[in-house]
C-alpha cells in the first residue's frame, strides 16, 4: 500500500475548471445597468456555494443574507430588513474564519452601503433605479457611440466605403481611431461570453485600409452663423466637421503649423503614420472649414476678440504642457519632457540618440511612446523607471508588451529621487529610491511605500520625463472662463458656465484622455452649439446594414494584429502593426454576435440612425 500517490484532477473537476473560466469571462462582459441588488444576491450565492461548511457565519450566515436580499427583491422586505442585512454582513465580516466567509460578507456590505438608495427603492417602491439604457454593449461603451455591429456587418460583406461612411456619422477620425483607439468598445463585447471579445479596432483598420477616399456629404443649407474652434486636434476638428455639415461657417485656429493635435504631435509615426491621419483631416476639410494655423490664442489674437467676432466658440485645446518632477537637477539640458520630444519629432526636429543610454520616467502611454521613440532614435539602452509595479502602469497592456518586446527595459518600484549632474551641469545618472508595494489606495491600485533598501543609481545620457501633461488655460481665463485644477470648467453639454457663447471640451476639460473621448466631446459640443444657434440639425447616414446571419459562429479564436519585429529599431519610424488579411477579417467579422439584432438590441430598434 503506497502512502503517496500522484494526484490528478477528476473529470468533474476538469470540467468545472473550464466553467470557472467561462464564468469569469461572463462577468467581464456584464452589460452596464444591471440591478445591483440582484447582482449582489447572485454573487453572494456563488460565494455561499464556495463555503466548506465548517463555520457558522459563513455556512448559515451567507444563506440567511441571501434570503434577506431575496426579500428586498421580492418586495416583501421593510427598511428594517436593510438594517438587518447590514448588521448580519458586518457580523460575518467580523467573525468568519476565512476569506471565503468574510470577503463574501464584505461584498454585501460594500453594496448595501455603496448603493443603499437602490436597496431602499426596492423596499419602498418595488423598483430598481438602474436599468438597461443602451442595448448594444460595444455601442454603449464607445464614448462616441459608433455603430459597431453595423460596420462589422459591412466589413463582412466587403462594403468598406459604406463601413467608413457609417462610422463617420459618429466619428470623423475613423482612420486615426482604427490605428490608435483604446477601443473601450471591446471591453464588454458579448462575444466574451462565448470565447473572447471581437477585435473591433482591427476590423475598423481593415475597413479604412481598404476603403477608397471620399469627400464629406454636402453640408446643410448655410445658416449664416459663424463658429470658431480653438485647437485643431481630434476634438476640435470633430466639432468643426459636424458644425460644418450642419451648415454653419466654421473657422479653426491651430497654434501648430499642421492640424491633428496630439494625433500628429503626440503619437509617433510607427503607431499612426502621418498619411493615415491626413486621410481623416483631408476628408474633414472637404466640408469647407476655414483653417488658420500657426495662430496662438492670447499671443496672436485675443480670446475676447474671437468671442466677439463669432456667434459661438468651442475651446478644444489639448494638454500640451508637461508636468515637472520637482527634483533637483531637472533643469539640466539633457532632461527633457516626453511631450516636447514627441512634438519636436512631429515638427521634423529629430534628435540623435545613437549609442545613448536613456531613462524614461513614468508608466503611462506617453512614457511607452517616448521609450519606443528613443529606441528608434538610436538609443543603445532604454530604461522605463516607474514607482509602482508594471501591473499598476496606466499604459495599455499591449503598449507595455510592445515596448518590452522591442527591447525597452522596465524598472518598476523605483521612485525617482534626484538627478546627478556633472561639472558641466548635464545629467549623468538618475538616482532612485526602491519601493515596496503597499496597501490599496482609493484608485484601486496598491500604493508604493519606501523600501528598506539603498538608493539605486542608473547612469544615463538622457532623462525623459513622462509623468503627465497640463493645459495652458490663462488666455481663456482672461474672458472669464473658470478653471479648476488646471482644467477648464464646462458642464455636460460642453457649455462654459457664465459665458453665453463659449463651449469647451476634450482634454481641456477632462484632463489628458483619449482620442475617442475628444471625438465624443466634439460631437456633443457640435450638437449643443447647433442648438444654441437655434437649430436642430440631424446628422444621419443612409447606409443600409445587411441582416444578421441566422445563427452565430461557434467558439473561435480572436484574430490579433501582429507586430513587425526587427533586430534593430534605430531610424525606423514605419508602422509597426500589420493589418488583418482578408481571410482574417472575414473570420473575425463573423465572430460578431450582432447584438443589434439579437437580444435586447432589437427591442430598442437595434441602432440610432441619426443624432
Amino acid at each position, binding site marked *: 500500500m503506497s502512502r503517496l500517490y500522484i494526484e490528478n484532477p477528476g473529470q468533474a473537476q476538469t470540467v468545472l475548471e473550464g466553467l470557472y473560466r467561462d464564468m469569469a469571462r461572463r462577468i467581464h462582459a456584464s452589460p452596464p*445597468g*444591471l*440591478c445591483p441588488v*440582484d*447582482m449582489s444576491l*447572485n454573487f453572494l450565492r456563488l460565494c455561499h456555494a464556495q463555503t466548506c461548511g465548517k463555520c457558522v457565519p459563513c455556512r448559515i450566515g451567507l444563506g440567511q443574507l441571501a434570503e434577506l436580499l431575496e426579500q428586498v*427583491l*421580492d*418586495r*416583501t422586505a421593510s427598511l428594517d430588513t436593510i438594517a438587518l442585512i447590514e448588521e448580519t454582513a458586518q457580523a460575518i465580516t467580523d467573525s468568519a474564519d476565512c476569506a471565503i466567509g468574510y470577503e463574501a460578507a464584505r461584498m454585501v456590505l460594500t453594496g448595501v452601503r455603496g448603493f443603499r438608495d437602490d436597496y431602499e*427603492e426596492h423596499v419602498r*417602491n*418595488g*423598483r*430598481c*433605479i*438602474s*436599468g*438597461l439604457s443602451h442595448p448594444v454593449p460595444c455601442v454603449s461603451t464607445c464614448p462616441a457611440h459608433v455603430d459597431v455591429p453595423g460596420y462589422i456587418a459591412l466589413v463582412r460583406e466587403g462594403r468598406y466605403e459604406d463601413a467608413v461612411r457609417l462610422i463617420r456619422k459618429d466619428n470623423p477620425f475613423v482612420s486615426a481611431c482604427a490605428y490608435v483607439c483604446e477601443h473601450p468598445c471591446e471591453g464588454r463585447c458579448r462575444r466574451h461570453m462565448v470565447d473572447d471579445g471581437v477585435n473591433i479596432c482591427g476590423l475598423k483598420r481593415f475597413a479604412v485600409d481598404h476603403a477608397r477616399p471620399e469627400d464629406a456629404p454636402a453640408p446643410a443649407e448655410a445658416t449664416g452663423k459663424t463658429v470658431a474652434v480653438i485647437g485643431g486636434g481630434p476634438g476640435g476638428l470633430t466639432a468643426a466637421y459636424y458644425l460644418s455639415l450642419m451648415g454653419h461657417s466654421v473657422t479653426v485656429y491651430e497654434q501648430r503649423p499642421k492640424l491633428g493635435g496630439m494625433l500628429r504631435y503626440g503619437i509617433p509615426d510607427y503607431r499612426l503614420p502621418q498619411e493615415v491621419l491626413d486621410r481623416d483631416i483631408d476628408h474633414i476639410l472637404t466640408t469647407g472649414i476655414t483653417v488658420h494655423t500657426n495662430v496662438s490664442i492670447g499671443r496672436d489674437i485675443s480670446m475676447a476678440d474671437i468671442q466677439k467676432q463669432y456667434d459661438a466658440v468651442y475651446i478644444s485645446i489639448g494638454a500640451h504642457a508637461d508636468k515637472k518632477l520637482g527634483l533637483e537637477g531637472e533643469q539640466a539640458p539633457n532632461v527633457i519632457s516626453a511631450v516636447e520630444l514627441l512634438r519636436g519629432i512631429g515638427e521634423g526636429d529629430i534628435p540623435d540618440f545613437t549609442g545613448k543610454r536613456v531613462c524614461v520616467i513614468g508608466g503611462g502611454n506617453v512614457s511607452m511612446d517616448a521609450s519606443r521613440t528613443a529606441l528608434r532614435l538610436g538609443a543603445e539602452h532604454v530604461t522605463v523607471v516607474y514607482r509602482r509595479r508594471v501591473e499598476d502602469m496606466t499604459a495599455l497592456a499591449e503598449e507595455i508588451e510592445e515596448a518590452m518586446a522591442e527591447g525597452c527595459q522596465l524598472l518598476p518600484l523605483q521612485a525617482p529621487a534626484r538627478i546627478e549632474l556633472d561639472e558641466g551641469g548635464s545629467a549623468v545618472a538618475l538616482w532612485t529610491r526602491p519601493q515596496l508595494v503597499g496597501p490599496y489606495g482609493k484608485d484601486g491600485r496598491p500604493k508604493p511605500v519606501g523600501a528598506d533598501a539603498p538608493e539605486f543609481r542608473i547612469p544615463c545620457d538622457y532623462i525623459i520625463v513622462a509623468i503627465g501633461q497640463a493645459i495652458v488655460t490663462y488666455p481663456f481665463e482672461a474672458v472669464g472662463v473658470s478653471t479648476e485644477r488646471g482644467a477648464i470648467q464646462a458642464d455636460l453639454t460642453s457649455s462654459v458656465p457664465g459665458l453665453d457663447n463659449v463651449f469647451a471640451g476634450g482634454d481641456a476639460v477632462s484632463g489628458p484622455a483619449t482620442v475617442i473621448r475628444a471625438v465624443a466631446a466634439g460631437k456633443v459640443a457640435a450638437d449643443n452649439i447647433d442648438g444654441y444657434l437655434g437649430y436642430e440639425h440631424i446628422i444621419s447616414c443612409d447606409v443600409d446594414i445587411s*441582416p*444578421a446571419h*441566422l*445563427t*452565430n459562429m*461557434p467558439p473561435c479564436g480572436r484574430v490579433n494584429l501582429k507586430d513587425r519585429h526587427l533586430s534593430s529599431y534605430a531610424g525606423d519610424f514605419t508602422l509597426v502593426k500589420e493589418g488583418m488579411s482578408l481571410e482574417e477579417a472575414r473570420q473575425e467579422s463573423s465572430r460578431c454576435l450582432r447584438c443589434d*439584432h439579437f437580444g435586447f438590441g*432589437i*427591442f430598442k430598434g437595434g441602432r440610432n440612425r441619426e443624432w
Partner: protein
Amino acid sequence: MVTLKIDNQTIQAPEGATILEAARANGIHIPHLCYLKGLNEIAACRVCCVEVEGERDLVTACNNPVQEGMVVYTNSPRARKTRRINVQLILSQHDCTCATCVRSGNCQLQTIANDLGILHIPYETQLPHGRARMWTAIFPLYRDNLKCIKCMRCIQVCDKMQDMHVWDLSGTGGRTTIDVSGNRMIKESDCTLCGQCITHCPVVGLQERDDTRKVYDALADPEKITVVQIAPAVRTAWGEALGLAPEQATIGRMAAALRRIGFDYVFDTNFAADLTIMEEANEFLHRFQSGGLARWPMFTSCCPGWVQFLKGQYPELAGQLSTAKSPQQMFGSVAKSWFAQKIGVPPEKICCVSIMPCLAKKAEAALPTMATDAGPDVDLVLTTRELVRMIRADKIDPAQLPEEDTDSPLGTYTGAGAIFGATGGVMEAALRTAAWALTGANPDPEAFQAVRTEPGLREVDYELGGVKIRCAVVSGLRNARQLMERLKAKKAHYDFVEVMACPGGYVGGGGQPISVEDEERYGVRGQALYAIDKKTPLRFSHENPDVKALYDEFLEKPLNHKAEELLHTDHFGWDTPNARQT
C-alpha cells in the same frame, strides 16, 4: 423574389419578407405570441422558432428574412419540442385561472396552449407576490402583473404608435417586468388613457377598470332612473365580440338588449354629436371670423385622450381647444337638465350611463368640471367590451332580439352625428353645418369626404361661401405630435384641426373588442359608420329635429348663455399630471 422551401413546399416570397410572413402568405401558420407586425418584431417569446437547414440553432421566424434556397421546417421534432417548452415556461409565470379572466376565449396564450395540446405544465408556478402584484384600483387602466407575459407589445405600441413612452421595462434579471417608465406611478404619468396598449395585449396584462358592478347596482336601485347612451363607434364593433354578422349588429338590437338588461331609457350619443356640431361649428365660425385663429387653429375637443395629450404635452395651446364639451358630456348635461325636466324628476334620480369605445371617457366623466350640484353629468362609463360582458352575462342573444327604436328625444340623430366615430368625422360633420351657416344652403353631404381615409395627416382647404378654411385631420398620437411640431415650426397653418388619439378615431378606440388575430379593425368599422351616414335620411346636424326642439324649448340658440353653461367647459378647470413646463 426568393425561392425557398417551407415544410417541403417550394414557395416564393419577396426579398426581405420574414419567414413568418412568407409562410403565412402560403397558408403555413407558424405559432407566435409576442410578434405584432411593424411594432413588435423582437423575437422575445421564442414561440415562432423554426428549424432552418444548415443553421446550428433554431431561428425565430418573426424577425429573420427569407433567403434564396433556404429550407425551413416549422414542425420538425426539435421545433415542436422547443415551441412547446417555451409556451410551458410562459404558462409557468402566468396566472392560468382562465375561468375568471375577461380575456378567456379571446386570449392568444390560451389559444396557443390549447392548439399545441399542452395538458400540463412540468414547471413550478412562479407568480409575483407582495407589492409586486399591486396596482391602483382607481385608475381607469388596470395592469395585472399576474397575467402579464412581458411580450413588450404595450411598450412598443406606446412608443411607436402613440409616441407617449408611458411603459418601459423595469429592473433587470429574472424579476424584469413592465412598469410605468422613469419609475413613475401611473397616476402621475402623462398616460392619455388611449388604451391602445390594452387592445394590443395578447393576454390580459392590461384592461379597463371594470365598472359593470356599479352599473348593476344602479339597475337594481329602485330609486334610480337609468339612462344609457351609445357612442357611434360602439355599434360598429360590439357584434365582433358576440359573433354577430354586421347586418345583425344593429343599433335596434342593441337597444333591445339594453332594455332586456334593465335600462329605463336607451338613447344615442349620435344625438349629442349633432348637438356638439351645433355648438362647435358655430364656435369655430365665431373664432374664425373674429380673427382668433390667425396663428393657431381651433382644435376639436371631443376626444378626451387628445385633450389630455394637448394639456400635458403642449399646455400653452390648451386655449385653442374648442370649449364645446364632448358628445358624451353634452349628453349627460342635457339628460340631467332638459330631459329630467321633461320627465319631471330631479336630476339626482337619474343615473346616466354611457357605452363608449374608450377608456379616457371614464376619466373625462370624473373630471371636476363635468359635474353640477346634482352630481356628475355622466355617472358611469362602460367600454364596448364591458357592454359585451353584460350581454353575455344575461345570456342574451342579440340575433334573436327584435329591432327596437331608441327612445326620444335624446335618441334621434343624423348621419353627421353617426360619423363622429371615425377619424375625420367630426370635421366633416362640422363642415356640413358650417357651410350651411355661411351660405344659407346645405352643401352636398359628400362634399367633404376628402377628410376621411387613413390615420395619417390629411390637409384640405375648403371654400365655403367665398371663405377659405384650412382644415387638417389626424388620428393617433404620434401623428398628432408631428402635426403639433409642424404647427409650432410654422411649417403649416390651419384654421380647424380635428385630432383623435386612437388610430382611425373612436372606432379604433382602446375600449373596443380585441381581435385575437391582431387584426386592425378601425378601417372596416369606419366604413360601417359611413354606410350608416349614407342611409340616414337626415345628414346635417342642424336638421336633427330633437336638437332643434332642444334649442327651441330650452337653450334658445348655440353659444348663448345657457348653452355655454351646459354645453361648454373650461379646459383649465383641472390639472394634468406631469404637464410639460413651458
